[in-house]
C-alpha cells in the first residue's frame, strides 16, 4: 500500500513546490518579450493562499488513502486548476508593473511544473478510483467552467486568450479545416485499410505487395513525403486544369491528405489483419456447418469478432492523424498547424496545440471505452475456459 502512495505524495509535494517557485508566470508588456518573471505569490496575491490551501487539502486526502479521499482529491485538483486560471487572469490589472493594453500573462516554468505534477496526481488517483464516471464528470465540469469564464472574458489576462482574440477571424475556419481533413483522411484510410487488412491475412501475394509499399512509405518523414507528393499533384493539375476545383493542385490540402492517408492506413491494416487472424477458425467452421453462406459468415461472425482489433487500429490511426494534420498548414492546407508553427509566441502554439491535444485524447479514450463496451471483448480467454469445462 505505502509504495503506491509514495508517488502521489511526491507529485502533490512537487505541485506545492511549483507554486512557490520564483519563476511561475511570465509578464509580457507587449506580445513577444517576457519582461518580468513573476512568482505565484506576486501574481496571485491573496489567492495564492487559497490555492496553496487546496494543495494542502489534496495532500491530506492522498495520505488518507481511502477511495472517497481520492475522488475528493481529483475534485480539488481540478478546482485548483480552474481557480488558478481565473486568478492569474484577474491579477493582470492589479500588478504593479508597467503595462500597456496589450500586456498579458503567460505560463512560466513554475506553472507548467504545477500543471504536469497535478495531472500526475489526477492520473495516479484515478487508478484507485473505482467509479468510472467520476473523473470524466469532474473534467467535463471543469472544462465547462473554463469555457464559461473564457466566454465572459474573465480569462482575458492570459496570453492564450489574447492570442485567440488576435487570431479569431481565421480560427474557427482553421479548426474546421483541421477536423475535416482528419475525418476525410480517416474515412479514406478505413475504406482502404480494413479490406486490405482482411486481404493480407488471406493471401500471401497481397501481404507481400502491401507491406513492401507500406514499409517504404512509413519510413519517409512526413514533410518529405508531402513534398514528394506535390510533384504528381502539380503535374496532374497543370495537365488537367479542370481537376483544380476538386482540390488536385500542387498546394492546398491535397498532397498532405494523401500522405496522411498512407500513414493512417498502416496501423489499420496491421490491426485488422491481427483481428481477423485471431478469429478462431473453429467459429467459422461451425458457422459453415450450420449452412451460413460465405458473406453471411464474414459479416455476422468474422467481422464482429475482429471488430475490437479493427477499432483499435482505427484509434491509433485517428490519434496519429489528428496530430499529423498539423503538417497540412505548411503547404497551404490550413488547419491548426498554422498556429503551432508560429515560434514567436508560445501561446500561439498553445492555441493550436490545445484543441489538437483535446481531440487526440478524446478519440483515444472514447474508442477505448467503445471497445470495452462490446459485451464479448476481452472474454476470449474465458470462452476457451468454458470449452474446457472449467
Amino acid at each position, binding site marked *: 500500500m505505502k509504495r503506491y502512495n509514495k508517488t502521489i505524495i511526491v507529485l502533490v509535494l512537487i505541485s506545492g513546490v511549483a507554486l512557490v517557485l520564483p519563476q511561475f508566470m511570465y509578464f509580457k*508588456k*507587449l*506580445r*513577444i*518579450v517576457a519582461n518580468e518573471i513573476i512568482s505565484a505569490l506576486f501574481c496571485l496575491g491573496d489567492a495564492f493562499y487559497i490555492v496553496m490551501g487546496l494543495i494542502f487539502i489534496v495532500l491530506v486526502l492522498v495520505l488518507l488513502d481511502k477511495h472517497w479521499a481520492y475522488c475528493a482529491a481529483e475534485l480539488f485538483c481540478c478546482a485548483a486548476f480552474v481557480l488558478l486560471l481565473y486568478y492569474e487572469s484577474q491579477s493582470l490589472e492589479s500588478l504593479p508593473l508597467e503595462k*500597456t*493594453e*496589450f500586456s*498579458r500573462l503567460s505560463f512560466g516554468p513554475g506553472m507548467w511544473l504545477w500543471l504536469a505534477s497535478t495531472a500526475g496526481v489526477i492520473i495516479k488517483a484515478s487508478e484507485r478510483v473505482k467509479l468510472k464516471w467520476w473523473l470524466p464528470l469532474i473534467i467535463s465540469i471543469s472544462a465547462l467552467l473554463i469555457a464559461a469564464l473564457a466566454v465572459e472574458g474573465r480569462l482575458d489576462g492570459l496570453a492564450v486568450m*489574447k*492570442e485567440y*482574440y*488576435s*487570431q*479569431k*477571424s*481565421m480560427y474557427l*475556419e482553421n479548426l474546421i479545416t483541421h477536423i*475535416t*481533413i482528419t*475525418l*476525410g*483522411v480517416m*474515412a*479514406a484510410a478505413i*475504406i*482502404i485499410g480494413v*479490406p*486490405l487488412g482482411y486481404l493480407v491475412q488471406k*493471401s500471401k*501475394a*497481397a501481404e507481400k505487395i502491401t507491406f513492401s509499399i507500406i514499409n517504404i512509405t512509413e519510413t519517409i518523414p512526413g514533410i518529405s513525403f508531402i513534398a514528394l507528393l506535390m510533384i504528381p499533384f*502539380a503535374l496532374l*493539375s*497543370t495537365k488537367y*486544369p479542370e*481537376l483544380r*476545383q*476538386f*482540390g*488536385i*493542385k*500542387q*498546394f*492546398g*490540402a*491535397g498532397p498532405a*491528405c*494523401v500522405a496522411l*492517408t498512407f500513414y493512417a492506413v498502416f496501423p489499420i491494416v496491421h490491426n485488422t489483419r491481427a483481428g481477423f487472424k485471431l478469429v478462431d477458425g473453429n467459429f467459422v467452421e461451425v458457422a459453415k456447418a450450420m449452412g451460413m453462406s460465405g458473406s453471411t459468415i464474414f459479416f455476422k461472425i468474422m467481422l464482429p469478432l475482429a471488430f475490437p482489433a479493427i477499432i483499435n487500429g482505427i484509434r491509433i490511426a485517428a490519434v496519429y492523424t489528428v496530430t499529423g494534420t498539423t503538417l497540412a*498548414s*505548411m*503547404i*497551404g*492546407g*490550413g488547419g491548426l498547424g*498554422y498556429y503551432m*508553427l*508560429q515560434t*514567436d509566441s508560445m501561446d500561439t502554439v498553445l492555441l493550436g496545440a490545445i484543441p489538437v491535444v483535446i481531440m487526440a485524447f478524446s478519440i483515444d479514450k472514447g474508442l477505448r471505452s467503445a471497445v470495452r463496451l462490446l459485451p464479448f471483448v476481452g472474454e476470449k480467454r474465458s470462452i476457451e475456459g468454458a470449452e474446457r469445462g472449467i
Partner: protein
Amino acid sequence: MKKAISMVLAVAMMATMLVGCGKKSEEKKVVNADDPIVLMLPSTSEYEIIGYMTLLALEKGGYACENKIGAISGLDMLREMMLSDECDITMGYTGNGMYYMEEEGEKVWNSLQDGYARIKDYDKKTNNVDWLSPAPANNTELLAVTKEFAAANNIEDMYDFAEYVNNGGELKLATPQYWVEYAQGLPGMEKAYGFKVAENQLVIGAKAEKEVSEGTDGMNCTMIFTTDGRIDELGLYVIKDPLEIPPVYAPCLVAKGAVMEAYPEIADLTNAFMKTLTTEVLIGLNRKVDSEGADPETVARDYLVSIGLLDAE
C-alpha cells in the same frame, strides 16, 4: 486483385479530392462575381497587412475577391503559386528580382527605381506578370544588436561594427544560410567595411531576433529584416549601412497580366495606399501585429481609414 487495387486507389483519390476542396471565398456582388480575384499571401505580418489593405481597397472599388491571405507558411512557394495559376495577385519585393533573373551582385538592384524597372520589364515579357508600383520602403537585410550592446561598444554604423570585430570583440552572429552565400549579403558587407566574421562566430540557420534580445546561447548579433515590427519590443538596434550594400527590397503587389488587362483600375486603387507605405510606416504596422497582437485585417482597415481611403465604420 489489380482491379481491387485500382478501385481502392480511385476511392482514395476521391476522398482526398473531396477533402482538399477549395477554401471558402468571400463573395460580394460585383464586377467579376463569377471569377473572383484570388489574393494569396503568406502568413507573415507584412504580407498579411498589405494583403488586407489590397483586399479592402479592391472590395471598396467594387471587385469580388477570394481571400487566401495567410494561406501558406513558406515564402519560397509564393512565386510558384502565382506562376502555376494558383492566385491572381500576390506580393513581391523588387530586390528578389535578382534571384528570378539570376543577377545576384548586379548593382542595378541597389536602386529602387532601377531594380523595379528591371524586374517589371522582365516579368512582363517572360511570364506576363505585372509588378505594380512599389511602396517607398526598403525591407532589406541588415545586422541588428541589442541597444545595450550598441551603446556599450559605441556601434552606430557598420564602420563601427567592423572596428569592433577587428578588435577581436566577442561575436556570435545568427543568419540564414543564403545570406552568407551571395555577394550582397555578408560577404559584401565584409568586403565593403573591411572585416571578417570567423567560422566559429557564425550560427547559420535562421535569424535569431528573440534569442539575441534575450542573449540566448551567447548570440549577440543577428541578420534582420529592416521593417521587422518587433525591433522596438525586443530592444534591438539596426546598425546603419551608409554604403547601402544589400539590394533594395521594396514591396510591390504582383498581379497576373491577364487580370491587369481586364481591370487596369486595380493599379490606381492599390497605388493609393502603397505610395504611403514608407519603411517607418511599415515598421509601425508590423509592430501592431507582432508586438501588440492585433489582427492584420484590423490593422489594415484602421490604416486605410486613417489615410482616408476607407470610411470609418
